[in-house]
């Protein structure tokens, strides 16, 4: 099996290396050259986007092929990094990873475009933004626990600066709260990761320990995690560290309170990345690390997740109805939608997990669109609360139309990717025996419709408001590009979900099979 390399690095390594190099490039650009900074960022992210599409195409082409004929395994790359500690630069992708890399590249591409208007400390802004996305890509491709954690933490801190400096609405409090919540989650997960790492080594007794995920999985198969830890089943004891640690960013109720506040305070591009990608790190990490390493722990704890996710769905949805600030509405709605993702995972069925990953993708694109749109008019109005807005579609019809599209996607109207994925989650939950939750999930659509219609009506429809006569619509193709791009992605995968579900399907099957074996045995 010939590895695929480009200049010595696998395309998966390039997905991390290009943003890292872009960060360096921006670092050495003078602060005054704002346009140069923007162009470097755009060039880097376009390139990354191209690679992400290529990876996704390869993943789609792999579906149904034998292991020997596949391209994706040939992208894996492992370079020893710190031998004594068992750290290696180890990247690899399956369908799930490919989908998430694709999502990230879409969101950051659109994010770079919508941030074109940032004038205050532009260099620092793009520096933080691209550093953040480097971490996100790192999480999605990494197959080494160290680099996984490294990237995960790396993605958290730039968010503090992005919100703290360029944010709005209570930004100091929101940014600090967000950072502390996410760091607490991260270190909690680190404790879990280190416990798993130690157990694997103590069991396999190799000369050096290893953070390699495959090493951990090998230890799992050998039975390293079946022993007891201080009188408790190790898996049951260690799993919550990973579950709640990663769950803080997912954001799992009741650890979600940082999230709407952070969304509201962040600047557009940061909100987009935050809601579109950062929140997915949690669910992704649970699926990538926690469930495969500790499947029996997962089976033990998933009923708890199944209960918590109902709070996510209902609480998020109902609170969103009561909100006036547009960003808070979308923020709470994200929390509600993430409940569906968690429900899909908790169902422990292939269909549910597939739907959860697909929903992560769909919601990421949709919510990025939402924050881009809100950011677009907020930059001009400096007002986001519904009673103050109204009738804006007279002045900014393009943004208004796009917002309607976004709302339809979010409310789960057929034809958008969100519909397909939410249906999969609901059926998956029913199939997995979570019948009550499935019913709640269906009912959860109702508040979604209510708050989205209120938002659309309150902000864009109604009589013409002369206060907004000065608003400029997105008229040039360059301004419209990010919005059209995101809407077309939503529609593409809405009408043709198999493009993605087939790719994700194999990862989902594998996880569901693992959980079924763990539950049965």
């Amino acid at each position, binding site marked *: 099996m010939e590895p695929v390399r480009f200049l010595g690095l696998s395309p998966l390594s390039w997905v991390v290396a290009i943003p890292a190099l872009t960060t360096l490039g921006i670092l050495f650009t003078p602060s005054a050259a704002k346009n140069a900074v923007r162009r470097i960022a755009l060039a880097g992210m376009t390139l990354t986007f191209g690679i992400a599409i290529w990876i996704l195409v390869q993943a789609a082409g792999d579906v149904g092929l034998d292991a020997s004929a596949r391209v994706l395994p040939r992208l894996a790359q492992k370079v020893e990094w710190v*031998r004594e*500690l068992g750290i290696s630069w180890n990247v690899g992708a399956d369908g799930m990873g490919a989908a998430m890399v694709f999502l990230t590249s879409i969101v950051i591409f659109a994010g770079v475009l919508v941030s074109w208007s940032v004038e205050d400390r532009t260099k620092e802004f793009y520096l933080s933004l691209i550093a953040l996305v480097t971490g996100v890509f790192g999480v999605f491709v990494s197959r080494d626990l160290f680099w996984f954690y490294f990237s995960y933490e790396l993605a958290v801190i730039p968010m503090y600066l992005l919100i*703290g400096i360029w944010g709005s609405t209570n930004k100091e409090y929101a940014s*600090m709260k967000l950072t502390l919540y996410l760091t607490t989650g991260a270190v909690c997960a680190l404790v879990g990761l280190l416990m798993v790492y*130690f157990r694997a080594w103590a069991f396999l007794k190799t000369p050096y320990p290893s953070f390699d995920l495959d090493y951990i999985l090998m230890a799992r198969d050998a039975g390293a995690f079946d022993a007891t830890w201080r009188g408790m089943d190790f898996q049951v004891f260690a799993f919550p560290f990973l579950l709640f640690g990663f769950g803080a960013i997912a954001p799992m109720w009741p650890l979600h309170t940082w999230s709407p506040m952070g969304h509201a305070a962040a600047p557009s591009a940061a909100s987009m990345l935050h809601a579109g990608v950062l929140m997915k790190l949690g669910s992704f990490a649970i699926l990538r690390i926690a469930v495969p390493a500790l499947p029996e722990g997962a089976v033990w704890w998933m009923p708890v997740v199944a209960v918590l996710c109902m709070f996510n769905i209902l609480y998020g949805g109902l609170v969103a109805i009561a909100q006036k600030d547009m960003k808070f509405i979308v923020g709470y709605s994200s929390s509600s939608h993430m409940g569906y993702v968690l429900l899909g995972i908790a169902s422990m069925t292939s269909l549910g997990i597939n739907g959860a990953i697909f929903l992560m993708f769909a919601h990421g694109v949709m919510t990025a669109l939402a924050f881009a749109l809100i950011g677009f008019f907020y930059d001009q109005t400096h007002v986001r609360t519904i009673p103050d807005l109204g009738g804006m579609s007279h002045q900014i019809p393009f943004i208004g139309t796009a917002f309607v599209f976004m709302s339809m996607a979010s409310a789960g109207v057929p034809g958008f990717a969100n519909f397909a994925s939410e249906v999969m989650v609901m059926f998956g939950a029913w199939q997995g025996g979570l019948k009550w939750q499935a019913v709640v999930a269906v009912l959860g659509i109702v508040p979604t419709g209510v708050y989205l219609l209120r938002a659309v009506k309150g902000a864009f429809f109604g009589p013409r408001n002369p206060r907004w006569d000065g608003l400029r619509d997105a008229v040039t193709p360059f301004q419209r590009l990010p919005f059209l791009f995101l809407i077309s992605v939503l529609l593409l995968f809405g009408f043709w979900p198999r493009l993605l579900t087939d790719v994700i399907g194999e990862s989902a099957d594998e996880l569901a099979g693992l959980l079924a074996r763990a539950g049965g045995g």
Partner: protein
Amino acid sequence: MDIAGPFAPVLLETLSACGAGAVLLVDLFTPEARKSRVGAASLAVTAILFLAAWFGMEAGGETATLFGGSLVLDGMAVFLKRTFATAGLLAVLAAIRYEDRLPRGRGEFHFLLLSALTGMFLVSSVGDLMSMFVSLELVTLSFFILAAFRRERPESVEAGLKLLVLGSLAAAFVLFGTAFLYGATGDLTFAGLRDHLASLRGAPPSRDLLLGLLFVLLGLGFKIGMVPMQVWVPDVYQGAPAPVTAFLAVGSKAAGFALVLRLVTTVAGPGTKDSLQLLFTALAFATLFYGNLAAIPQTNVKRLLGYSSIGHCGYLLMGLAALGPASYYDESAAASGAAAILFYLLAYALTTFGAFLVVILFSAATGSDEMDDYAGLSRRSPLLAASLTVALLSLAGVPPLAGFFGKFMLMRSVALTGPAGFGLLVAGAVNVVIGLYYYLCLVKRMYVHPPKDASPLPVTGPTAALLYALTAALLILGIFPGAFVTLASDAARAAFGVGG
């Protein structure tokens, strides 16, 4: 490359002692108007020491001894000497930026910096308790004077006095403990101590030996800022001249840990491991929480860094708590803890100087160390704000910076002890969050708050280059730590006698 042959163990010490004398002579023969030559001479000496330490000594060579075993050059000593040489170079670079606030006595100031450095070099490779005591006193005594050096400022003199009283108290503890170690073994060398313990064949050592060990460790606890011997740290950090504070933060801590490591590698064995592990776990707990919690309400940057340095001592103690008890690969866990300490000290040296350099430059321009005066620094000087932010984030342990990797290594080595280290692992994790909070409070002031006084703070070319170099070093150590980890691990494994 080994440029000193059989005299390698004493190369750096000789060079820096001679350099210190040379600086005094330069000062003597330099007219008042050209006193900047003194700093240049001192810089030349430390630059030579830096090069000699990093490129003139063999890291993986055989253990060499001189003076009948009084001076031992092993891997651990080489690693520590490199850390000290780096810290010394940075201290002189920082001191040169501070010099215009030293009205007189530049020659003496640099002489004392170099004599403290000489003491640190000695401390890293002493082979007996006599040399240990006098070398440690050479470091401490130089710092008494340096801390009090701005004698026109009462805070500075007061800092020197506080350091002196508690430093001498520590010396008395070390001396009393040494007496009991001597009483128990009849010998004052580390080798004698090791032989004595080996002759016990795993039985717990006599109580007088344990008492002596406890006293020496308590005395060394003063130097590293360990709870409950941390009382001097905040006052001295705040009152001493900033370059001295930075050098003290790094030098005193590293010198203390050099000796603690030397002692622990000597005495750690089947009979002592459990009690040592219990002791260090308790101390690490107390030190971590005290330092980090007490840092939260601080309003003075130097004081904040003082409390945070207590917290960092707590992290370093985690590495010692990885001593055992017996679990699979316990010797490796102990060695990995020692390796983590060595790496962390190097990272801490670079990070601390990165932070203090900005503090020095800022207070030179504004005359203030108050956190509130840092408001809006990112608009007044993006470079200073960015450098300080990177240094603070490295102290907090955020990737991709050196401090992150150091903390990661320490937590990993604690995790290797299995269930015994679990509580400490969680405590370390909690303290990462607490630390991040108060560091971010300062970052917030620099980036989020509007400046009170919007005048820009220019940074000259060489200073900017130094700040860039330090930031780059933090990034390199954080992303490509492999080579340094190998050095530290080999040294630690050799010191603990672990093969492979």
